[in-house]
C-alpha cells in the first residue's frame, strides 16, 4: 500500500502541504523512482544500457566506436521521425497504419521528373514542400474520414496503407526514380558538427514534438481527447477538427521521413517505408505511450526507437540471423506492454482501495 500511496503523491508539488497526501512522504523519492512515471523512463534507459552492455561485451570497441554510434543513430532517424508523428495519433487514442506507405508515396512524388525539374530551376526546397504537402494531404484524408466519416481509425488508415502504396506504384510505374538534384542529396547526406544531417533532423523533430505535446494547447487537447473524448467534446474542445490535425501531423512527419529516405538512398520508390508503420507503432508503445490513449511520451518514443535500432546493430555486429532479431523484437514488445499493464492495474487498485470521504 505504501508503494501505491507514493503514486498518489508523485505529482504533488512542494506548494501543497496537504496532510492526507503527504503521509507517504518518507518513501516518496524512492517510491517515485521505483514506481512513478520516472520509473518508466528509467526502465527504458536500463533496457538501452543492457543492450549497449551486450554490444560492448560481444563486439567491444567496434561497437563503442563513435562511427558505430552514428550508424545506430542514422538507422534510427527515419523510423524515429515517423514514430514522433504516430506518438501524437496514439496519444489521442487513434492509430495510423498508413505512415509507411505515405512515406513511400511522398518519396515517389518528391522524386518525379517534373518536381526535380522545377527544383533544378529554382531551389531544392521545392522537393521538400511537395513531399510535405503530399504527406499532409494523405493525413488530411485519413483525418476527415475518421473524424467526420466516423470510420474507425484502424480501418481508415489500413485503407490508406493499401491505397497510398498503390498510388505510388501507379505514379512511379513501379520503377525506382533517381534523385538527381545534387543540392538536395548533398544537404541530406552532409554532416553538421560531425553528426549526419539525418540525425539532426531526428533530433529537431523530437525536440519540437516534445515541446508540442507538453507545452502547448495542441498537446493538451491531444492528451485530453485520448483520455476522454466525450468529456473533451462536452467541455467545448473542437474534437473533430483536432483529430483531423493529428493525422495531418502524422502525414507531415511521414513526408519528412520520405525526404530523409530520398536523401539516404538518392531514390524515390513505392517500396520505401515498407512495414515501417509497424516499427513505428512498436517504438511508440515500447516507449510508454498508452495504445488506448490519454498518456503519451515523446521521450519514451525516442528511447523506443533507439532500443530497436541498437538491437539491430548488436545483431548485425555479431553477424546474427535477422530472424532471431525479429524474435527478440517481438519479445521486447510483449514485455513492454506487460509492464505497462501492470502499471495500469496497480493504478486501478490504488483508486479502488483509497476511497476518500466526500
Amino acid at each position, binding site marked *: 500500500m505504501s508503494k501505491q*500511496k507514493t503514486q498518489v503523491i508523485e505529482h504533488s508539488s512542494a506548494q501543497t502541504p496537504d496532510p492526507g497526501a503527504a503521509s507517504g512522504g518518507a518513501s516518496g523519492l524512492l517510491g517515485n523512482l521505483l514506481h512513478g512515471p520516472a520509473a518508466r523512463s528509467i526502465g527504458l534507459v536500463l533496457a538501452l544500457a543492457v543492450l549497449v552492455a551486450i554490444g560492448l561485451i560481444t563486439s567491444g570497441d567496434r561497437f563503442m566506436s563513435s562511427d558505430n554510434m552514428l550508424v545506430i543513430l542514422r538507422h534510427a532517424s527515419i523510423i524515429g521521425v515517423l514514430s514522433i508523428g504516430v506518438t501524437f495519433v496514439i496519444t489521442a487514442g487513434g492509430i495510423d497504419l498508413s505512415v509507411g506507405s505515405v512515406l513511400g508515396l511522398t518519396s515517389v512524388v518528391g522524386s518525379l521528373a517534373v518536381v526535380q525539374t522545377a527544383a533544378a530551376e529554382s531551389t531544392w526546397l521545392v522537393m521538400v514542400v511537395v513531399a510535405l504537402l503530399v504527406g499532409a494531404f494523405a493525413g488530411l484524408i485519413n483525418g476527415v474520414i475518421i473524424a467526420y466519416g466516423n470510420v474507425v481509425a484502424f480501418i481508415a488508415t489500413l485503407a490508406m496503407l493499401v491505397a497510398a502504396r498503390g498510388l505510388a506504384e501507379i505514379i512511379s510505374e513501379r520503377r525506382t526514380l533517381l534523385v538527381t538534384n545534387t543540392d538536395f542529396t548533398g544537404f541530406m547526406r552532409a554532416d553538421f558538427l560531425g553528426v549526419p544531417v539525418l540525425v539532426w533532423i531526428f533530433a529537431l523533430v523530437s525536440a519540437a514534438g516534445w515541446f508540442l505535446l507538453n507545452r502547448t494547447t495542441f498537446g*493538451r487537447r491531444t492528451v485530453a481527447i485520448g483520455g476522454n473524448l466525450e468529456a473533451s467534446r462536452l467541455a467545448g474542445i*473542437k474534437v473533430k477538427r483536432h483529430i483531423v490535425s493529428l493525422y495531418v501531423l502524422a502525414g507531415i512527419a511521414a513526408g519528412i521521413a520520405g525526404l530523409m529516405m530520398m536523401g539516404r538512398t538518392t531514390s524515390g520508390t513505392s517500396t520505401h517505408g515498407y512495414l515501417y508503420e509497424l516499427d513505428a507503432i512498436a517504438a511508440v508503445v515500447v516507449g510508454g505511450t498508452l495504445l488506448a490513449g490519454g498518456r503519451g511520451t515523446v521521450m519514451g518514443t525516442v528511447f523506443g526507437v533507439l532500443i530497436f535500432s541498437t538491437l539491430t546493430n548488436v545483431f548485425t555486429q555479431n553477424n546474427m540471423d535477422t530472424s532471431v532479431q525479429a524474435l527478440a523484437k517481438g519479445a521486447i514488445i510483449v514485455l513492454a506492454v506487460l509492464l505497462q499493464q501492470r502499471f495500469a492495474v496497480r493504478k486501478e487498485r490504488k483508486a479502488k482501495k483509497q476511497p476518500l470521504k466526500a
Partner: protein
Amino acid sequence: MLQDEKPRPLLEVHGLTKRFGAVQALKGVDLSVLPGEVHCVMGQNGAGKSTLIKTLSGVHQPDEGKIFWEGQQVSLPGPTAALDLGIATMYQELDVVDGLSIAENIFLGHEHATRGVLHVKRAHATARSLLQRLGHGNLSPAREVGTLSTANKQIVSMARALSRDTKLIIMDEPSAILDAGEVANLFRVVRELTAQGIAVVYISHRLEEIREIGDRISVIKDGQSTANNLHVAQTPKAELIRRMTGRDVANVFPERRPLPLDAPVVLDVAALELEGHFAKLSFTVRAGEILGIAGLVGSQRSEIVETIYGARKATAGQVTVNGKKLVPGSVSSAVEAGIGLSPEERKSQGLILDEPIYKNVTLSTFERFARTGLLDENAERRAAREQIEALELRPADPERPARTLSGGNQQKILLARWLVHGTKVLLLDEPTRGVDVGARAEIYTLIRRLADAGTAIIVISSEIEEVLGLADNVLVVDDGHVLAQRTATDIDEHGVLDLVMKGSAA
C-alpha cells in the same frame, strides 16, 4: 416446548476488521441477517460498505472477526466458497456480457453441458422459470443482453444469482443505476425474493428507499458499526443521518431567495425540436433562477439539455443566450456563449479520470490561460486552487488524479470548471448521482450560491424530491412534452406523478 421466539440468523458477522496497507478499511463490523428479511446496510462513501461486501462474498479475507453461516463458523477463502454456501452478490457495475443471450448470461460459469456440449433447451427452460420467479416471464431467454435496458440487465444479474441455490443476495446500491419507475419494479422483485425465504442485504445511502423496502437497518461509519438491527419503521430519518455522518443534518435544501422581478432572461429556448425525442419546446430561464426538469425515464430530460448544449443537433428551433443565437449541434458555440454542462455520467462524460484535478478544472479554459498556444500551467493551478478553496474540494491538492476523488468532489470539479469559465447558464444533469447524503447538502448549497450570484441554472434529476427541493420553478415533462410549469413550492412529488400519469393516459 416453546419454539425459540427469535429465528436463527442466516448470517452473523462479529468484529470484522480489514486493513489495506496503511488504511484500516474495517475496524469492527457486526451484522446479523435473518432469513427472508431485507437488511439494509447504510453508510457514506468510504465508510467501508464495499469492503464489507467483498469480505462477505469471499473476494477479501478479513484480518480478524468471525463469520457464521446458519450457526456454523465458516471461512470464505474465495468467491466460489461464498457461492457454494448460497451467498450471491450483485455488484453495482453489472457483470453481464452484452454479446451473450439472457440464458447464456444466467448460466455463465456453470453451464448445463455434457462433455462441453451445451443443453440449450434445458438452459432456456430453467432461465424462463427463473425470470418468472422474478416477475419477468416476458423476457425471452434467447434475447441478447446488450439489447436490454439497465433495469432488465439487473434482472438478468439477479436471475444468475438465483440460478445457484442462493439463500442470501447482497445488492450493492442496486437503485443507483435506476430511475424512479424502475426502482418500484426492483422493489417488487425484492419482495418476491423475500417471500420465497431469501434474505437480501441491501446496500444504499438513499434514505427514502430504505424506508420503503427495508426491514432492519445496520449503519457503518468509518469502518465501524454505529447501529445494528434498527427497525426501519421505528427509526426516524434524522437519527439515521446522524449515525451515518456523525452530525445533524437539519435541512438538506438551502433557502430560496425571491427572484428579483427585473431579473433578465438569460436562456431562451424557442420551439426547440429533436426529431424522435421532443418537439416545440419553449421556455426561458432568468438570471438567478433554478429551473428544475422533473420526469420519469423516457421523459427525454437528458436529451433536452443535451440539445440546448449542442451535444445533439436540434432539428428545429433556436436557443439564445443573452441575445446571442447558438449554432445548433455545436458545443463549442454554446460554451463560448456561456453555457456549461455537468453531464449525467460524470466519469465517462465529464472527467479525464487519470489527469490531475487542475487539468480537469481547466478543461474548458486552458486555451484562455495560454499565450499564443503556449500553456500557462501555473495560472491554471492558481485558478484551480482558488476553486478548490471556494468549493471546499477535498483533497485540496490540484495534482491529485480525478479518479481518486469521491463522487461529491468529482461533482465539485465540474462546478469548478464552469466557475472558472464564468458561465452564465449552467445545465446540471443528475448533479448528486453517486454523491452521499452529507456531501449532497453541500452540493445543493453550492448550486444555490451560484444562482444567487446570477447564474441561470437548469437541474435535472431522477429524484423528484431533489428537483422540487432545489428549484425555483419546475417543468414537468413526459415523453418530450411539457405537461406543466409550476413554482416549485406549489407542487409536491405526488402532484408531479399525478401529472405524468394523467399525461400519459391522455
